[in-house]
C-alpha cells in the first residue's frame, strides 16, 4: 500500500518537473492563445464530418473536397506538411459534442472543417468556440447558426448557403421566373430540409403565391405515392422538395405516375445536386430545377477529374465544393496570420486567425466569389445558381447541368 502511494507521488513530481521544462521560443501575443508548430511538425487541421451511418455519403463528399484542397497545395503550407485528423461527428447533436470535445482537447489543431449537419454544429459550437478554434462548415444551413441571437458563437463560419438565402432564391425563381402561383413543399425531417421549405413557403406567400400543401416524409421511405396523391389533389404549379437522395429520387420518379401532377414543376436544392441523381431518377427528372452553389466552369471540371483519379467515380453529394472552398479559406487565413520563427517554427495566433477568416473578401472559390460576414456567412446568396436537369444529365452522363438563372 505505502509503496504505491510513494510511487504515485514520485510520478506526480516527475510530471510537474517535465511540464515545467517545456520552454518556448516565439512569444504569443494573441488574446485567446496560439498554436505552436515546431520546425519538423506538421500543421494540423481537423475535420468533423458524418462518416458513418446513413448520412455517411455527406461526410465522404466533404472529406474528399478537403483532401483535394490539401493535394492542390502539395500537402504543404508555409513549409510544413499538412496533417488532416478527423472525427466522426455523426449527424446528431451528441455526436457533434463528443467529436468537438476530442478535437478541442488536441491543442495542435489549428482549424476545423465541419460539421455536416446543423444539429451537430449546434452542440459542437460552444466547445469549439471556447477552445479558441475556428470551424468552417461546408454544409450547415440552419439560419440560427449565423444569427448572433441564435446559436452563433465566435469562430464559426460556413461556406454553405444559409437557408434564408437559398429558400428565398428558390421562391423568387419559382414565383417570378416560372410564374408559379401555387406551390407544395415536402421535407424529410432534417433541419436542413425543414428550414429550407419553411423559408421557401414564407417567401412564396410574401410574393403573393399560395402554398397548397406542406408535408413531410421520413428518411427511409420508398413509397411516395400517398403523399404525392395528397399533393395532386390541388395540382400545384411547383413541388419543392429540398431533400436528399434517395427520398428525393423516389419523389421525382413517382411523381410522374400520379394523375394531377402532370403540369407540376419539380424543384429541389443542393442536397440533390449530385451526379447520380438524374441518372438514377430517369426521365422523370427531366426539366427539374435544382438550386445550389454556382459550380459551373473549367475549375470545377478539373476538380471532378481530380476526384475521379483519387477516389474513383464522382462525389456522392453536393457539398464537396463548399468543403474545398472552406479548406482553402482556412489555409489562406493561416498563411496570412502565421508568424514564422528563425528556426522554421510557426506560431498561429487564434484570434487573428478568426479575424482573418472573417475579413475574407472576394475569395475566388469553386462555388463562386465568397465574402465572409462578421457572423460567419461566407456564401451570401449571390453565388447561388438554379440548374435545370435535361436529358444530357439523365442519359448523357453530363455533369454539372446548365445554370438557367442566377439571382
Amino acid at each position, binding site marked *: 500500500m505505502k509503496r504505491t502511494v510513494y510511487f504515485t507521488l514520485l510520478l506526480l513530481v516527475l510530471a510537474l518537473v517535465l511540464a515545467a521544462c517545456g520552454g518556448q521560443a516565439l512569444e504569443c501575443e494573441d488574446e485567446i492563445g496560439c498554436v505552436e508548430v515546431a520546425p519538423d511538425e506538421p500543421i494540423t487541421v481537423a475535420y468533423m464530418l458524418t462518416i*458513418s451511418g446513413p448520412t*455517411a455519403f455527406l461526410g465522404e463528399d466533404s472529406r474528399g473536397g478537403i483532401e483535394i484542397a490539401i493535394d492542390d497545395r502539395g500537402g504543404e503550407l508555409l513549409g510544413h506538411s499538412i496533417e488532416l485528423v478527423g472525427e*466522426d461527428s455523426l449527424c*446528431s*447533436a451528441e455526436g457533434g459534442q*463528443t467529436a468537438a470535445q476530442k478535437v478541442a*482537447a488536441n491543442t495542435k489543431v489549428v482549424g476545423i472543417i465541419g460539421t455536416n449537419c446543423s444539429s451537430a454544429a449546434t452542440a459542437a459550437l460552444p466547445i469549439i468556440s471556447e477552445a479558441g478554434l475556428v470551424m468552417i462548415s461546408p454544409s450547415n444551413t440552419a439560419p440560427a447558426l449565423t444569427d448572433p441571437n441564435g446559436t452563433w458563437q465566435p469562430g464559426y463560419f460556413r461556406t454553405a448557403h444559409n437557408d434564408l438565402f437559398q429558400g428565398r432564391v428558390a421562391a423568387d425563381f419559382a414565383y417570378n421566373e416560372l410564374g408559379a402561383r401555387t406551390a407544395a413543399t415536402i421535407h424529410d425531417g432534417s433541419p436542413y430540409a425543414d428550414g429550407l421549405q419553411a423559408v421557401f413557403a414564407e417567401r412564396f406567400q410574401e410574393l403573393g403565391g399560395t402554398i397548397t400543401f406542406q408535408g*413531410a416524409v421520413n428518411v427511409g421511405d420508398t413509397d411516395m405515392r400517398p403523399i404525392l396523391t395528397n399533393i395532386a389533389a390541388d395540382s400545384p404549379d411547383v413541388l419543392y422538395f429540398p431533400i436528399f437522395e434517395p427520398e428525393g429520387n423516389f419523389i421525382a420518379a413517382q411523381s410522374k405516375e400520379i394523375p394531377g401532377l402532370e403540369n407540376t414543376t419539380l424543384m429541389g436544392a443542393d442536397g440533390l445536386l449530385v451526379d447520380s441523381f438524374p441518372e438514377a431518377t430517369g426521365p422523370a427528372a427531366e426539366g427539374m430545377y435544382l438550386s445550389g452553389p454556382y459550380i459551373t466552369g473549367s475549375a470545377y471540371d478539373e476538380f471532378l477529374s481530380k476526384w475521379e483519379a483519387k477516389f474513383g467515380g464522382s462525389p456522392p453529394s453536393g457539398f464537396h465544393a463548399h468543403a474545398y472552398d472552406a479548406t482553402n479559406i482556412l489555409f489562406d487565413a493561416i498563411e496570412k496570420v502565421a508568424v514564422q520563427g528563425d528556426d522554421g517554427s510557426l506560431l498561429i495566433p487564434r484570434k487573428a486567425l478568426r479575424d482573418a477568416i472573417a475579413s475574407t473578401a472576394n475569395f475566388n472559390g469553386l462555388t463562386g466569389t465568397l465574402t465572409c460576414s462578421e457572423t460567419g456567412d461566407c456564401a451570401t446568396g449571390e453565388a447561388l445558381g438554379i440548374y435545370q436537369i435535361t436529358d444530357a444529365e439523365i442519359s448523357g452522363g453530363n455533369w454539372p447541368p446548365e445554370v438557367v438563372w442566377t439571382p
Partner: protein
Amino acid sequence: MAKTGRIDWRQLIRYGLLAGVAALYVSVIGMVEVFSQRSLITGVLTLGQLLLFSAPVLAGYLAVYKDDESQTAAFSLLKGVITGLFSSLPLIALVLLANAVNLRAMFVNVSPALIDILVFGQGTAVGVLLLLLSGAIWGTLGVIIHLLPDKTRHVVLVGLSWTLGAGMLSELLIQVFRPLFGSGFIRFVFQGGALKLWASIVVFILVTLLDWYWSKRREEVKTKMANLNPTQRRAGMGVGLLILLILPWILGTYLSEVLDNVGLFILMGLGLNIAVGLAGLLDLGYVATFAIGAYVMGLFTSTSSLGVGELNFWIVLPISILAAMTAGFLLALPVLHMRGDYLAITTLGFGEIIRILALSDWLSPIIGGAQGILAIPKPQIGSFVFRGPQEIYYLILAGCILAIFVSSRLNNSRTGRQWMAMREDEDVAAAMGIDTTKSKVLAFTLSAASGGLAGAIFASKLGTIFPHSFNLLISINVLSLIIVGGMGSLPGVVVGAFALVALPELLREFAEYRLLLYGALLIVMMLARPEGLWPSAVRRRELKGTEEEEIEGGEGAPVAVTAD
C-alpha cells in the same frame, strides 16, 4: 501424423486460404490503403501492414497449433512456409485481376494506390514474388511464435499486444500525456502520432517485466486481498471513491466526455436491467423513456421561444423522471399479455412512435419538430455550474450511484425475487401466487425512471436536443450492453457500458471503419463469453449446470443435440 512429420495438406491449405481471404477482405474494403499512412511504430510498422500481415501469422500459428511435441521444428517451419504461401494467393489473384480489368467500377476501394501497396511498390511480376515471400515469412513467424517455450511465448505475446495497443492508441495517449508531461515529452516519445522505435521497445520491456513480476506475485496479492479486514476494506473503498472523484481531472475533457456518455448508458442500462435482466421482459423501446426525460427537461428549462416556464434544472428533474415513469406505466398495460418477440416488436414500435411524434410537424409548434429545442441551460447548484464534461461527470456519477443503490436493493428484495421467478417461468410464477400483472407493471414503471433521469441529464448536457438523437440504435445499444455485461448483473451493466460505449470511442481512430470493428467485436465478445463479461452469480451457476447436464438453457433456448 506427428510421429512421421507428415504434412496434412488440406488443413494447411484451408488455414492459408482463410488467412488470405482475411487479408483480401481488409484490402478490398479499403482498410489497408486508408491506414497505410498511419504508423504504429514510427518507420517500422503501419496499421495497414499490421492488418495485412496479422492473418498469415495467425494462420501459421494455427497450422501447427494442434501438433504435439514430437513434431520436429523443421517440419513445423515448413508447414508455416506452406501456409504462408497459400495465404498470399488471394492477394495475388486480386493484383492480377486488378491489372486485367477495372475492378474499381464495382469495388470502389480497389484503387491503383492499393495495388501499389500490395506489390510493395514494385511491378506486378516482382510484386507477386514479394507477396509470396512475405506470406512465407509471416507464416513462419507464426510457427516460430508457437515453437517458443510456453512461458516465453506468453511474455512475448503480452508484450507485443501492449506495444501495438499503445501504438494504436498513441493519439489518445498524447492527449492525456500532453497536459501532464508537456509538449517536450510528447515530442520525445512520439512522432507523427505514433510511438518512436525506442519508445516501443521500452514499452515492450516494461510490460514484459511487469507481467513477469505479476505472474510471480499474483497468488500472494490475491490472498492478501481476500484477507483484508473490514477497516482495510473500507479504506480501499474510500480510495476507490476518491479516485472516482478526481478521475475527470486526470483524464482531461475528452475522456471525461467519454466517461459521461458511458455514465448515461450505465444509467439507462441499470434501468433496462430491471425490465430485461430481472423481470425478463424484452424491451426494445427503451429510448422512449430517455426521449421523454430529455424532452421534458428541454421544454421546461429552455430559454428559447419554445421553453415553458424556464424552470430550474432541479425542479424539472423529478418531473422528467415522473413523466418517464408514467410512460413506462402506460406502455406496460397493452403489453401485459404479450411475450417474447411480440413484446419486443411492440416496445420497439412504442420507441419509434415517440421519436416520430417528436419529429412531426404536427407537434412541432410545441416541441420543435425537426429543428429541435435549443438553448437548454446547464444545471447549477448555487454558483457552481455544471458547464463542461468534467463537471457534469459528478451529476452523472451521483445518478449512477443512486441507481446502483436502488437496483441492488431491488435485486435482493421480495419484488426482485418475484421478477426473477417470472423471468424463469411466468406460468409457474403465476401459479405460485405471484401477481404477474402487478410485477410487470412495476418493472416497466421502475425501469423507466432511470431512463428518464438519463434523458434529463442528456438534454442539459447537450444544451440542445433534436429528435434524431432518440433512434432505435439507443435502445439496441442499451440492450446490448446489458447482455454483453451479463444479464441481471449490476457490475455487468457497468462493464458492459464501458465495453459498448467507451470502445467505439477508442475505435475513433478507425474513422469510417469504426462500426465495422464494433460489430465484429460484439460478435467476438459474445462468442467468447456468452454468459457476459461479468455475469451475476445466479446465472453463472445456471450456465454451469447447463453445461454439465446439457438440459435446456435458462430461457427456454433450443438445444443443439448434435455436436458441432
